[in-house]
């Protein structure tokens, strides 16, 4: 299974990961339309964290033993047995914020509506997640990891 590895030492803090994550999760998948016309603009599910001089981008780690799945009140957060991904179903989500409380990475956000959460889905429809594909300095790497 492939996961995103964070290479802190290569992160320049440019924030392109957030831009492309937003675009990828927009309706139009077009950068101009996503930023100019979509209201509310979809949030980025990857978070660029900056604490100078440190910066890195972080998104859901799809934990093996995911605390958000165990804590979820509604069953919206699930562990996919086949792919090992932590999946989130916004239709089931009730925005209770319990997953936010227990995510050790702070990688779950409220979505633009403020009514449900949103998190990295590893861009399942793409070969390589948008944040990784658009990182100009190799600070995010998509590679095979041991389960």
């Amino acid at each position, binding site marked *: 299974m492939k996961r995103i590895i964070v290479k802190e030492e290569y992160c320049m803090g440019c924030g392109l990961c957030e831009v492309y994550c937003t675009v990828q999760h927009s309706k139009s998948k077009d950068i101009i339309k996503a930023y100019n016309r979509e209201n509310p603009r979809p949030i980025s599910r990857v978070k660029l964290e900056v604490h100078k001089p440190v910066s890195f981008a972080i998104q859901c780690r799809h934990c093996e033993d995911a605390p958000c799945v165990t804590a*979820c*009140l509604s069953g919206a957060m699930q562990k996919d047995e086949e792919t090992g991904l932590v999946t989130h179903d916004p239709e089931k989500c*009730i925005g209770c914020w*319990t997953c*936010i*409380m227990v995510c050790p*990475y*702070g990688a779950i956000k409220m979505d633009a509506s403020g009514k449900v959460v949103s998190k990295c889905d590893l861009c399942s429809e793409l070969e390589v997640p948008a944040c990784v594909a658009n990182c100009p300095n190799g600070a995010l790497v998509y590679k095979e*990891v041991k389960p």
Partner: protein
Amino acid sequence: MSKYVIVGASAAGIGAVEAIREVDPIGTITVISEEPCPQYSRPMISDLVSGKANFDKMMCREDQFWEKNGVQALTGRTAVSLNLADKYVALDKGEPVNFEKLLLATGGKPFVPKIEGADKDGVFTFTTLSDAESLAAKIEAAKSAVVIGAGLIGVSVTEALVKRGLKVTMVELKDKILSLILDPTASEMVETVIRKAGVTIATGQTVQRIVGKPEDDDVVGGAVLTSGKQVQCDLVIIAIGVIPRTELVSGTDVKTNRGILVDRFMRTNVSDVYASGDVAEAYDFVFGENRLLPLWPLAQLEGKVAGYNMAGKKADYPGGTAMSALKYFGIPIISIGIANPKDDTAYESIVKHEPERNLYRKIVLKDNAIVGITLVNDIEQAGVLFHLMKNGVNVKKFKQELLSEDFCLATLPRSLRRKVYPGEYK
């Protein structure tokens, strides 16, 4: 004969089934549930009343969850007694069920104090789906309600009733609402929004007597508070708290305090008998002792730990603590551990309050380790703080930064991140 028998089909029961099946795909599992339709999320019953969720949305697991996990679900049945010597559970109807391993996940029941008139039509408790359905059926015809108790259940039922257009009076014995989980500042922030929504909050009081309607004394018409004031209402909801349902073990060798006592493996003192969820007194890592913590996420985790151990995979419960994420009336709040430290020099509280932006952050420390977290409105990094808290990290060097809105994983020194975060993801 069933290899695993689980009494109770809510959070702990569900967690146990999933854990057992991870380890043992074939051992027979029997779940006994009083409710006709389990696998629903109890914290969501207020969403059912408010209209935010329908019955389908409340199902917190896939359809046919029990069948898919090969569970014999005895629903609508009550476990009436235990025979620990011969290892069986007797039911209200049908054959007793023998077990090799037993999990008691019987949960809690609402605490109902003796109040005159509590037998009138229109008085409800609020913990189960059937409570919610009965209440929902009365709402159309009702204009006003009195909610007794302003804890987690009381506030959530209040919000649901307000959304359905009822005029609500919330009555709370303590001086502040949500006083067990919030400090006075955070409590007032919630009070403000609740009042804005048109709710009357009467603190320092309780309901002395429930009175009938002039035309029919058997139907709720009002509530008389301890102050003597009478509040007109069509419904009364009793939401004072829950007490563990330990009745099944009374008279057996299973040791109880207020709840069933369990060790870090969720074992009771009787071999092959486990307990989890609201009925159990499990380990609280903040207090370093076992206590009742009737919370859905902990129940599910405890059930999971019990399930692993029952199936032979050693797993220890890391411990829980009081922890609640709230969304009442649109204000996100997270409260973990100690909100109101005793007036004691051992505790240090660091606070940042910006009333004009409705922001509040409070971290309670003991020996430079986090023992309490309260966040109002800016909550997204709560989990990072909770992780430091669970790991007992000494935060002395970056204490003030814990209060910053910019606080995040990157704030932590790299050496610390390496230490408390596993794998490559640093």
